[in-house]
Structures are given as structure tokens and as C-alpha cells.
């Protein structure tokens, strides 16, 4: 029998009085995924993660980790590790003692501690009290404590937040390496570059609801390619664009000229002929692939992308 997916979330809801923090979230993270859980601050990412780890009770819906319910017993977290918000440790204990505590509470020995300290490059500071650690060191200690559990699934809540550029680079490298080792990773983040660099699949959450779930490639293909056009007379060029079949979303962009989307390349060819026939010299006409950031803002601020193809799903337009 096939093993249940690392994460299966169905109809997950969390309400605090009148406020709905998480609203009917469905999510499936498959084995081997490095799954980006994207959303602006306050979108409900951390609350979702807390429910996935059994720290808070859902108002409705279910979470299954490898088919097990974390609300019933902590044994559902076997093979699962991670942290929500910043990882926290006892400031009056050393980094090593904190890891010893984690290992003891996992029923594991101390054998692995040196190894994970080495992985996160904290071996030299292991004997220092955590209260003297920088934010980045605490983040790395958080990863170390997660690795002690030999996880098959890691849930990381914005692990690069608050790190300096070098720390962010190291953290990404670490997550990439974990993914290469076959560990399934759910990476909650609001940093597009991080997700774009590391993840093969994403869910984008907005106001507690999943606005998109699927692969990055599908998300990009759906949004199509936009073009930028610079001419010697952008005002007249805009009129030509607007009258041209297959050319949509024409907009003026300061310092760029005009931007538009095209149904296909023949529509762009037709536009260039029409501009020439109108005696409007073209200075620049270049395709521009939408970045994840564009798509993120489209989904979290706009009306959402057009209907999806394949397995990916735009869940709904969020009002």
C-alpha cells in the first residue's frame, strides 16, 4: 500500500472569535517536495503550521502527517520536525545542553549532537549559553534541533527571517541540501526569491485561504508572458496597441514605456507591423517572463490568475 503523503490538510479552519485566521485550507505536500507556503504577513501561514504540529486545535478540518493526526498524540510527529516563528531555546542553557534536552525528549542519545552541530556550523559555540547567540545562530540551532529527529518531513516557518544576507544565503543552502537528501520540506515564507530558488511546488495563501496550489512552472505558464514596448511616441503607440487584436492589458509604465500581454507571438508580430504602418518607430519590444513576485502580488492583491491547467489549482478569487 502506498504511504500516505507527508502532509494532507483538508478543510482546515481556525477562528479566534470573529476573526477567521485560517479558512478552509486544503493542502497536499508529497514526498520529496520542497513546498513553499507563501503569503503576506498575517495571512495565516504560522497558524496553519501550528495546527500541523498539533500546537493549536483546529476549529474545523483535519491535518494528517504521513496519515497520522497530530491532535491525537505526539506520536503523529514521528519523522516530523520543525519550528514555528523563531526557534526558541532556554537562554540560560548552552546550545549543546538545549540540544541534549531535545534529544532526551525524543528518547534519542547524544551521539548525533556533534554531527548536527557540525551541519549547522555551531560546534565552536556549542558550549556558550544561548542568551549570547545571535538571531542567525538561534535559527541554525533550530535547524540542528530539528535534524536530531532524523526527520522525513521538515516544517520551517520563515527560517531566513531576520538574517543578514550571508545568513540568508547559508540558510537557503542548508534547506537546499536537506531537500537533496530526500527530506520533504514545507517552507513557510513571504520571501519570493527564497521560494523561487528552493521550492518545486507552492501554495499561496491570502487572508487565511489558499489562493493557489501547484507547481511553480504551472503558475508561471498560466500567467503568460508580458511585453514591454518603447517607441518614439508612446501615446500614439498605446492607441495602436488598444486597437490591435490579441493584445491585452495595455498599460503605461513610467520609465519603461508601455506594457501589454499577448495571446500569442503572431499578435505581437501583427502589432509591430501596425506600429510601422502608423509611422511609429519602435525603440524596444521585449518579452518579460512574470516573476513569482508578480504572480504573488497578482494572487494576493489582485483578482487572481486565469483558470489553471493541469493539476494545479487556483482555489478561488479572494475578495
Amino acid at each position, binding site marked *: 500500500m502506498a504511504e500516505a503523503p507527508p502532509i494532507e490538510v483538508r478543510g482546515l479552519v481556525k477562528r479566534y472569535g470573529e476573526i477567521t485566521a485560517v479558512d478552509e485550507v486544503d493542502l497536499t505536500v508529497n514526498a520529496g517536495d520542497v513546498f513553499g507556503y507563501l503569503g503576506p504577513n498575517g495571512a495565516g501561514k504560522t*497558524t496553519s503550521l501550528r495546527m500541523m504540529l498539533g*500546537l493549536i486545535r483546529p476549529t474545523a478540518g483535519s491535518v494528517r502527517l504521513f496519515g497520522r493526526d497530530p491532535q491525537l498524540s505526539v506520536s503523529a*510527529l514521528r519523522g516530523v520536525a520543525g*519550528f514555528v516563528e523563531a526557534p526558541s531555546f532556554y537562554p*540560560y542553557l548552552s546550545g549543546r545542553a538545549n540540544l541534549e534536552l531535545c534529544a*532526551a525528549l*525524543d528518547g534519542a542519545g547524544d551521539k548525533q549532537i556533534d554531527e548536527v552541530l557540525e551541519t549547522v556550523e555551531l560546534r565552536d559555540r556549542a558550549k556558550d549559553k544561548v542568551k549570547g547567540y545571535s538571531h542567525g545562530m538561534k535559527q541554525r540551532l533550530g535547524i540542528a534541533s530539528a535534524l536530531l529527529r532524523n526527520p522525513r518531513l521538515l516544517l520551517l516557518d520563515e527560517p531566513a527571517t531576520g538574517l543578514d544576507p550571508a545568513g540568508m544565503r547559508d540558510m537557503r543552502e542548508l534547506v537546499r541540501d536537506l531537500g537533496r537528501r530526500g527530506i520533504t520540506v514545507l517552507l513557510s515564507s513571504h520571501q519570493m526569491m527564497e521560494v523561487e530558488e528552493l521550492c518545486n511546488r507552492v501554495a499561496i495563501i491570502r487572508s487565511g485561504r489558499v489562493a493557489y496550489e501547484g507547481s511553480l512552472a504551472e503558475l508561471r505558464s498560466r500567467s503568460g508572458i508580458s511585453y514591454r514596448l518603447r517607441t518614439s511616441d508612446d501615446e500614439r503607440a498605446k492607441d495602436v496597441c488598444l486597437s490591435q487584436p490579441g493584445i491585452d492589458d495595455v498599460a503605461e509604465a513610467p520609465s519603461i514605456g508601455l506594457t501589454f500581454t499577448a495571446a500569442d507571438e503572431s499578435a505581437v508580430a501583427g502589432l509591430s507591423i501596425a506600429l510601422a504602418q502608423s509611422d511609429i518607430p519602435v525603440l524596444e519590444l521585449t518579452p518579460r517572463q512574470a516573476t513569482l513576485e508578480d504572480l504573488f502580488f497578482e494572487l494576493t492583491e489582485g483578482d487572481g490568475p486565469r483558470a489553471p491547467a493541469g493539476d494545479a489549482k487556483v482555489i478561488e478569487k479572494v475578495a
Partner: protein
Amino acid sequence: MPGVLTVYRWELRKLRAQKRTYLGLGAAAAVPIIFVVALVSGGGRPNDVAFGRYVHDTGLAVPLVLLLFGSIWLFPLITALVAGDIVASEDRNGTLKMILTRSVERHQIFAGKALAAITYAVLAIVIAGGVALGAGILASGFNPVTTLSGTVVSAPKGLGLVGASLLVYLLPILAIACVGLLLSTVFRNSGAAIVGTLMFSLLVQLVGILPGLSGLHPYLLSTQFNAWQGLLRTPADWAPILRSIWVCALYGLPALAAAAIVFLRRDVAES
């Protein structure tokens, strides 16, 4: 698999690593020493409390006098220092989410914490009693002690009675530890829980001195701090001790149960 014992051991290790632990235990050791030094240098005696008049005759009277003074705020405060902090400090440090996502169940974590808080309270009483006994014997000798009934008991038997008195004294202390645990779990704030526990103890004592409420006295927690005196009568009066057992259980067990329920059911969200 790890369980209550693992959590308990680590709670003790965490306590050993914190300064506040030594503040309470240091006070438990320092107060009897200060008391004995004052007795020796001043030469007076607290005649208005039980056994006060015998402090210069036998060192065995010193811990008994200390129990009477300590019940007002010293031992409740020392107990509250850890019981009120042991859950709330996890909220303050944000570490509850860390320990709850390892491989021990919530009820095991709660049990380990409750045991550690109780251990600390017991240790404080043992230290205070032991130091008072040692300092008292050094100052006044290991001599027979006169009971509340006026009979004189030998020093070794008196020592046994002092030990038994400390045990009986632990009953209301444990009830206060349970109240501290409840407030620590509910308030999620160490300061509020520690002060709240001490306030609870002082309020119960206040009720004890209000006129017109004498019918309540046998059932007040503050009264149970005197139950050990039943042992120092000839023959021993077991009635206050038996009452202390169930009265303290009546205060402590519901508080402990409520703390456990809150801890097991609470959402671990932002502190």
C-alpha cells in the same frame, strides 16, 4: 521511550541552571541562620509563640518556631517562586512549542513540571528545617524539648517529632504549589503567577483573622500550617493532622486538576 521521569530530570536540570532557584533555597537557608544569630547576640526569646520560650534551652525548638514564622510569607513565597514560574517561563521563553513538538505527550510534560515544583518546595522546607536544626543545636544544644502539653521528651524523640512536623507542614505547602501551578498555567506570566500565589496565601490568612469568621478557621489553608502542633502534644492529637490532609487536598487537588486541564487543552500560540 521518554516519559515523565525524563521531563522531571530535565526540569530539575533547568532549575539548577537558573539563579532564581538559588534565591529561594538561599533564603530558606539564610533565614534560620539570621534567626539564630539574632537569638544568640540579642539574648531575647519570642515568648508569644509556641516553643519560643525554649529556644535557648534546646536547638530542637528553633525549627518549630521557624515553621510558625515562615508560614506567613516566607515558605509560600519560596514555593511560589518555582511553582508560579515553571509553566509561565516556557511561555516567556517561547520554549513550550519546542518541547511540545518532541516525543513526549503533554500530560507527561505537565506531570514532570508538577513533580519538579513539588520537589523544590520539599527541598526548601528540608533545607530550612535542617539549617534551623543545625544552627539551633549549635546555639542551644541537643537537649530534651517540652511539648505543648508540658511533658518533656528526650532529644532523639524530639528530633523525630521535628521531622514529622516538617512532613505535616508540607501539606499546605504542596497545596500552595498546586495553586502556583494553576496560576502559572493560566496567567502565562511568571510575575503575575508568583505574586498571585503569594496574594492567595496572604488573603487566606487575612480571612483567618477577620472577626465573625471563626467557623471557617478549621477549613482555611492558613490554619493547616499549624496542624503539626498536634504531634507536639502528649498524647499526640491526630485530629488537626487528619483534617489538614483533606483540607489541603480540597485546595490543592482541584487546582492541580484545573492546571492540568488548561495545560492539556490550551492552544500554544504567541506568548
